[in-house]
C-alpha cells in the first residue's frame, strides 16, 4: 500500500496499531475503541496521534478531542458504504478539523473526486496506482454544481461571475 | 443440490446477449446448450465459466434447472431463451434461433 497525500506519494508518518499491540514511539493511529479506553495516556504522549473510524462510527464520538489529533482515518469496508463521505464532510464543516483525513479500504478510482470534495486529503492506494491516475481522477469533471467541504466555487457562482462580465440574459 | 439436469447460462459482456454453455464455448440457443446431468458436471462448468468472466467474455453465469421433459422449470428461462412474449418479432425467437 502507498500513501497519496495532496496528490503526490508521501511517506507515511504513522503506524496503524492493533488494539492489543504496544504503541510505537512516534506517529500512531489507534481504533476508536482503544482511544476511548486509553484516551488520557494517548493524549499525554508527545507524539502525533490518529484515530481510525469504522464506517459505522461517527466523528461525533471524538467530540472536541478531534482537535488534538493529527489524522483521522476513515475506513471503507466496501466501496458501496458511503458513510465516510458524510464523516469527512462533518470533520471539516462541523468540527473545522484541519488535520489529515485519510481514506483506507475498498474505495474506487471513480470515488476519488467525490472523496477529495468532502475533505479527504490522503488516500491509501494499491501498489500500481500512480500520481497520474490520481490527477486524472481529480480532473475528470471541471466544475461542480453544489458546495461541499472543499469550498470550491459552484457552477452557480461561476455563472454569476460570467454574467457580471457579460450581462446579456440567456435566451429562454 | 439438484436431481434435475441443469443448464449454465450467462450474458455476453459486450452486448448483453443471452448465451448458454456447451463444452467450453458459449452458444446462442437453449436447444444447443449442454445438459449438465449431475452436480459435478454443473460445478465444473461453473468453474470454467469463471475463467470466461475473468477474460471479459461473459458476466453473471448461473445454473438453472430443467424439468424431466427438458423444459426449464422457471418461466423466466423460457422467456430469456426466446425473447419477450409480447413482442414475438424481437429477440432470439425472431432470429429463428432454435429453442
Amino acid at each position, binding site marked *: 500500500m502507498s500513501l497519496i497525500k495532496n496528490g503526490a506519494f508521501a511517506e507515511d508518518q504513522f503506524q496503524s496499531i492493533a488494539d492489543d499491540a504496544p504503541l510505537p514511539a512516534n506517529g500512531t493511529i489507534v481504533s476508536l475503541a482503544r482511544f476511548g479506553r486509553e484516551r488520557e495516556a494517548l493524549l499525554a504522549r508527545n507524539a502525533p496521534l490518529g484515530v481510525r473510524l469504522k464506517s459505522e462510527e461517527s466523528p461525533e464520538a471524538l467530540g472536541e478531542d478531534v482537535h488534538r489529533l493529527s489524522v483521522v482515518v476513515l475506513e471503507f469496508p466496501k466501496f458501496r458504504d458511503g458513510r465516510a463521505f458524510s464523516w469527512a464532510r462533518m470533520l471539516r464543516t462541523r468540527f473545522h478539523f484541519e488535520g489529515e483525513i485519510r481514506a483506507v479500504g475498498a474505495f474506487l478510482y471513480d470515488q476519488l473526486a467525490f472523496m477529495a470534495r468532502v475533505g479527504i486529503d490522503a488516500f491509501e492506494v494499491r501498489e500500481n496506482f500512480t500520481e497520474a491516475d490520481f490527477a486524472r481522477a481529480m480532473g475528470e469533471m471541471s466544475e461542480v454544481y453544489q458546495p461541499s467541504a472543499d469550498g470550491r466555487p459552484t457552477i452557480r457562482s461561476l*455563472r454569476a461571475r460570467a454574467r457580471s462580465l457579460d450581462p446579456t440574459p440567456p435566451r429562454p | 443440490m439438484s436431481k434435475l439436469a441443469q443448464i449454465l447460462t450467462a450474458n455476453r459482456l459486450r452486448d448483453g446477449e443471452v448465451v448458454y454453455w456447451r463444452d467450453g464455448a458459449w452458444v446462442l440457443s437453449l436447444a444447443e446448450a449442454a445438459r449438465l446431468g449431475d452436480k459435478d458436471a454443473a460445478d465444473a462448468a461453473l468453474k470454467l465459466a469463471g475463467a470466461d468472466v*475473468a477474460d471479459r467474455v461473459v458476466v453473471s453465469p448461473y445454473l438453472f434447472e430443467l424439468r424431466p421433459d427438458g423444459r426449464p422449470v422457471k418461466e423466466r428461462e423460457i422467456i430469456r431463451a426466446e425473447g419477450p412474449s409480447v413482442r414475438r418479432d424481437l429477440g432470439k425467437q425472431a432470429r429463428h434461433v432454435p429453442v
Partner: protein
Amino acid sequence: MYRYDEFDARFVAERVDQFRYQVARRLSGELTEDEFKPLRLMNGLYLQLHAYMLRIAVPYGTLSPRQLRMLAHIARKYDKGYGHFTTRQNIQFNWIKLVDVPDALADLASVEMHAIQTSGNCIRNVTADHFAGAARDEIEDPRILAEIVRQWSSLHPEFSFLPRKFKIAVSGSEHDRAAVKFHDVGIEIVRNDEGRVGYRVYAGGGMGRTPYIGHVVGEFVERSDILAFLEAVMRVYNQSGRRDNLYKSRIKILVNALGADEMRRQVMREFEELRAAGTLEVPGEELARIARYFAAPDFGAPTDDVPEFDAARASNAAFRAWSDTNLAPHRAPGYAIATISLKPIGGVPGDATDEQLDALADLLDEFGVGELRVSHEQNLVLPHVRKKDLPAVFARLEALGLGTPNAGLVTDIIACPGLDYCDLANARSIPIAQRISERFGDLDRQHDIGELKIKISGCINACGHHHAGHIGVLGVDKKGVEYYQLQLGGSGAEDASIGEILGPAFGEHEIVDAVEGVINVYLERRERSERFLDTVRRVGIEPFKARAYAGWAFHI
C-alpha cells in the same frame, strides 16, 4: 424549458468521457463487474433479461422537439426502433449494447440529455406534475424547484453512495399529479397564511416490499432554505440509513423506525447548521433566473369560446369521445391540455416507436405546442394546445395510433416491463395489462365504469406502482409459475392510500376474471357518481373479496 449553458454542456460532455473511460476499463479487465456495476448504474445502464437496458433521464418529464427526434434516432441507431416510457417520467431502451453506450450518450449530450443517476444508490430523476405550467389549479410551476434540485443533486459528492436509491417528486398544485407522498422526499408547493409561497416537505414515502406514505418533516420551508433542508434530510439518511439489509435500506424504513418526531429533530439539527453556514441558500435572483426558463408562452387568445372545437365535437364521434376523456382544463382561455394515450387497446403500455416520436416532434412544431411531457402513468401530454387546433391534432394522433380515448379509464393501465424484459421480475405484467384492456375495450363500457387506475407490477419492487392503484396487481412466483395478487383502494394523489390485499394470489388464467368481478361489484354497488375508488373506500373490501373468490373451493 431549461436550456443548457456552457457549464451544463461541459458537465454532460465530461460525464460522457468519464463513462467512456469506465467502459474501457471494464472491457480491459481493470474493473471487475462488481466494481463496474454501480458505475454503470449511475449512468442508467442495467443488465436485463435479454440485453442491456439504458434508462435516459427526462427531467421532470419535459422534452423538446429536438430531443424527441434524438430519442427516435437512438431507437433506430442503437436499439430496435422503440422506447418505453416509465413511471418516473424517464424513457428506456431495452436492446442497447454496452460498447455502444458511450456513443449513444454523446449523441444525447448534443441535445442536452443524459442518463446520469437514473439508477444507482444516489438521487434519481426529479419528477414533477406533468401538467406543470398549464394546469388551472397550479400555485407555481413545480419544474422551477425541480430544476434547482436536479442541479444540486447531480454528482453530489456526499450523497452518491447512499444506502439505497432516492427519489424526489414535486407538485405545484393542490391536486397532486406527482404522487409526492409515495416518494423518498416529496415536495408540495404551498401558500402560507400570509400568502407567501413555500414548500411542505414529506419524507419516507415509498412503494416496494413495504409501502409507506411520507411524513411531513418540514411543514413550511422557505424558498431560500429548500436546498439546505434537502441536504439536511440527505445527511440524516446517509449517516443512519441501514446498510445491512437490502430490503430495509430506504429512507422510509429509517423514518418509521425513528418515528416522524425524531426524524424531524435530526433533520432540524442539520438544517439549522446548514442554514447558519449559508452555503446552500437559494437567493431570490437565482429562483427568478430559473423561473424565467419556465415562463409561460404568450397564450394570446382571449376567449374560451371556440366554435371549431364545438363543431368538431358535434360532427365527429371519435373526436368527441377523445375530447371527453383526454383533455384537461388549461389556465389560459382557448387552450387545453391533451393527454396522448400510450395504451392502445390490447397494446403494450407506455411504448412508442421511432416513427411516433419523430411525428410527435413534427406535431409540436406545427401546432406551436413547444414541448411534450411524460406522465408517471406512462402517457404523454401536450401541455398547451389551442382548442381550435384540437380537431387537427387529434386526427394526426389517431393516424399515428396515439388517439386512444381512454385517459384515466379502465384500459389506461400502468404496467412495468415485468418478466418479459426485467431481470428482477417474478411474473409478466404486460400480457395481463393487454388482456384486461381487451376485456374492457368497449368504449361505452369504459365510460360506464369511469375513472379507474389499474397498476400492475411484475415483482415486489413495485415499479408499476401497484400499491397506489385503485386496482393493484402484483405478480409473484410460486415454484416457477406466475401468480397474481390483487389489492384494492390505493391512490397516488393527494388522498394517498395504500391498496389492501384481497387474499391468495390468482393464477394467470384467473386474474382477469377476478378483476372483472371486482369491477362488477363496483357497478352494482356504486352510489351517485362515485368512482371505483370511492366505492371501495365506502363499503370496504369484503364484497369485492367475496366476488373475486366466488367459486373457490374453500371459504376465504
